[in-house]
């Protein structure tokens, strides 16, 4: 029983949540339109969470991703405002993510600071930098090129619904592409196998010839770029950028990875499990909003669900060990 709960408890819980909203919202929840909407809302979170998974397989984590998403959004928007071509501005924003990620990686792997401390410090710095770059203001309106904000509204036509075309949002496609890429890297390359080895036993990995500090550094760089990409996606979706708009992504992304870890057989972070975690959190948010549950109550409920899932998984694991 305990092992059944451990292996399938979270999956059953996730299915139960979907079923609950399906019954509670018979007309609006289980519709293509709603799910396409959810997928677009979640696309940024998916990108942050799956790239966060890259560092979490090593047992590390990165607290600076939310601040980095904010920073990259305002960097792109500020460059737009100064008349830079869109590709150049986007490349610059991604480069900021890469540099920030490398900075985290250097602090963690070469200097040897705990990830918690190192990324908490860079979180503060990235956040401050976002205010400096944007002068503390929201950049919007004519400063944001039409082509950039149109991207978030575009999509792959799936057919029509009455007069409206039904689109598979470009942001969703982008999130799927990033997920596929990270899945490929973590599950099917020797780079990914080595990251999992570091998480499995860092001393053994080192003696077996794994270049631990190089890999840790590069993994943090990966996560930094993911956060920057999410920031750009966010800016495109709301056609504006302000210095705090990505901040909320960090805690939810870490929560999603933990939620995903309750699904995997061996309790390790896995990309597809992370996506399941993101979807669970997103579905709850969407469903509770539609049920007009107060947003503060919503927060309490989401936190409680995370605790329940992780507790069941932890208790199940302990029961198996006894």
């Amino acid at each position, binding site marked *: 029983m305990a092992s059944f709960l451990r292996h399938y408890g979270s999956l059953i819980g996730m299915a139960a949540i979907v079923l609950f909203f399906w019954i509670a919202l018979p007309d609006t929840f289980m519709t293509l339109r709603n799910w396409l909407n959810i997928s677009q809302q979640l696309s940024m979170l998916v990108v942050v969470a799956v790239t966060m998974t890259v560092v979490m397989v090593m047992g590390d984590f990165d607290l600076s991703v939310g601040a980095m998403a904010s920073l990259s959004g305002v960097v792109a928007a500020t460059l737009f405002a100064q008349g830079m071509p869109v590709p150049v501005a986007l490349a610059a924003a991604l480069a900021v993510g890469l540099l920030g990620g490398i900075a985290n990686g250097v602090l963690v792997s070469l200097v040897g600071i705990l990830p918690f401390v190192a990324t908490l410090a860079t979180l503060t710095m990235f956040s401050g930098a976002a205010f400096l770059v944007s002068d503390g203001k929201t950049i919007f309106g004519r400063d944001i090129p039409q082509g950039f904000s149109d991207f978030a509204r575009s999509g792959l036509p799936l057919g029509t619904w009455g007069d409206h075309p039904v689109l598979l949002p470009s942001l969703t496609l982008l999130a799927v592409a990033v997920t596929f890429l990270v899945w490929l890297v973590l599950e*099917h*390359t*020797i*780079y*990914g*196998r*080595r990251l*999992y*080895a570091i998480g*499995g*036993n860092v*001393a*053994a*990995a*080192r*003696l*077996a*010839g*794994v*270049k631990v500090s190089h890999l840790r550094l590069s993994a943090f760089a990966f996560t930094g770029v993911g956060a920057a990409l999410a920031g750009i996606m966010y800016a495109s979706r709301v056609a504006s950028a302000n210095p705090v708009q990505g901040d909320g992504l960090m805690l939810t992304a870490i929560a999603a990875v933990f939620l995903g870890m309750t699904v995997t057989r*061996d*309790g390790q972070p896995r990309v597809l499990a992370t996506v399941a975690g993101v979807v669970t959190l997103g579905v709850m948010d969407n469903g509770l909003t539609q049920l007009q549950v107060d947003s503060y109550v919503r927060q309490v409920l989401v936190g409680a669900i995370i605790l329940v899932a992780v507790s069941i998984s932890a208790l199940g694991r302990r029961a198996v060990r006894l």
Partner: protein
Amino acid sequence: MPELRLRGLVKTFGPARALDGAELSLRGGEVHALMGENGAGKSTMIRILAGLDNADAGEVTLNGAPLRLGSPAMAKAAGLRFLHQENHVVPALNVAENMHLARPYPQRFGLVNWTALRQAATDALGRLGASHIDARSEMGSLGAGDQMLVRIAATLLADEVAPWAYIMDEPTAALTGAEAAALFRAIGELKAAGAAILYVSHRMDEVMALADRITVLRDGAHVATRDRAETTRDEIIRDMTGRDMATLFPQRMASSGSPALAVRDLRAAGLGPVSFEMVEGEILGIAGLSGSGREVLLRALIGAVPRAGDLELRGVPLAADPAGAWAQGLAYVPPERRTEGVMPRRALAETVTLPHLSRLANFGFFRQGRATRLVRRLAEDVRLKATGPNQPVAELSGGNQQKVLFARALAGDPALLLLDEPTRGVDVGAKFDIYTLIRDLAAKGAMVIIVSSDLPELIGLSDRIAVLNAGRITETLPAAGLTEAALLTACYKRES
């Protein structure tokens, strides 16, 4: 005088019988040595005494009354105290606080009474003849020997149950000569105060100097309990090994290959300069006490610690990092398999393939099918008992975990195999498999360097044995005809 008796203990782990009728009687006022080869059942017996494992059968009595030992708390209530090889201390707290970790701090008005705390610690240290240790110094600043004295002194503090028996498992493994001498004085004080000491050690010299009685276990069974005054080293060694060496160690091949490894002036922290050469197919044993640099030597060869010197394998300079060394055909089986070797909670295939990932990939993409086939073949070669490549390593017995590491080492068809304590905690059956593997590999031309504290093993397997003393090779002896006593004497000999 209190007396603890263990009779007819049986304990099985899966198919392996760790204890098979073990016996022991421990009396107050004696030092009782518990001896046996690796895997003889000493650790299992201690784990049962400590309440960490339950025996499947057998009886434990204290002063004739049955004693239940189901948990560490029960062992403590029976007056037993355990000192393991590793020191369980909090380095950042001071000596007095470390001594009070498991018991209430003296208090006054609800606040810690620091003066009384220090005084109690100082008194206890004094009773142990360890007054040189200041109760106020930081625990982390003490050497391993002083830390051990502090932990023994802690048991002398007032407690609900006064301890009467001390179980010490290889207490001198990490100690210098002077530290060991201080420990022996402390043991003398405890014994004089009427305490019993169960002293588990491989070191014949220590046992012959300290023990009043000696109990020998072999393959989990009781062989003999002898008075030290009426026995000899040879008799004890016969008790421990029991069998004819020739049956345990496979036939020795004559190695007469061409020179293939040259090590000149190798230096690392606590090692060197060390120079030696090896020929193809040779097995070189490294003997030495702990702290002699034997562990560092292998780590320096695999490139896991900073090193200097000229090292050449088949004419090519050796890479100075583990990744390069594995790629060049070195393989390393570390001494601590759980913390440095395997990934306990992961599929055993992940541990086996880890150093060889580059060769198991196309353009960076891992070839799962090829890896699985390799792991299956190797598992068969090393006679691994596992349900399959995906079984987590932690579910395997110690011997099979060690075989996982051997499979990993063999995966690259190594030119030079580095083995540190290759059969520590391994049962006799698996031991024989491992010995056969080592011999087969050497017969195919690979060179093997073995570090082991198990002297019969070293003599039985090696072609030559280099003796390390204080980081240098003091002697290199041919293994054929070498006796354990002669080798031990060489280990103890100080450089002139």
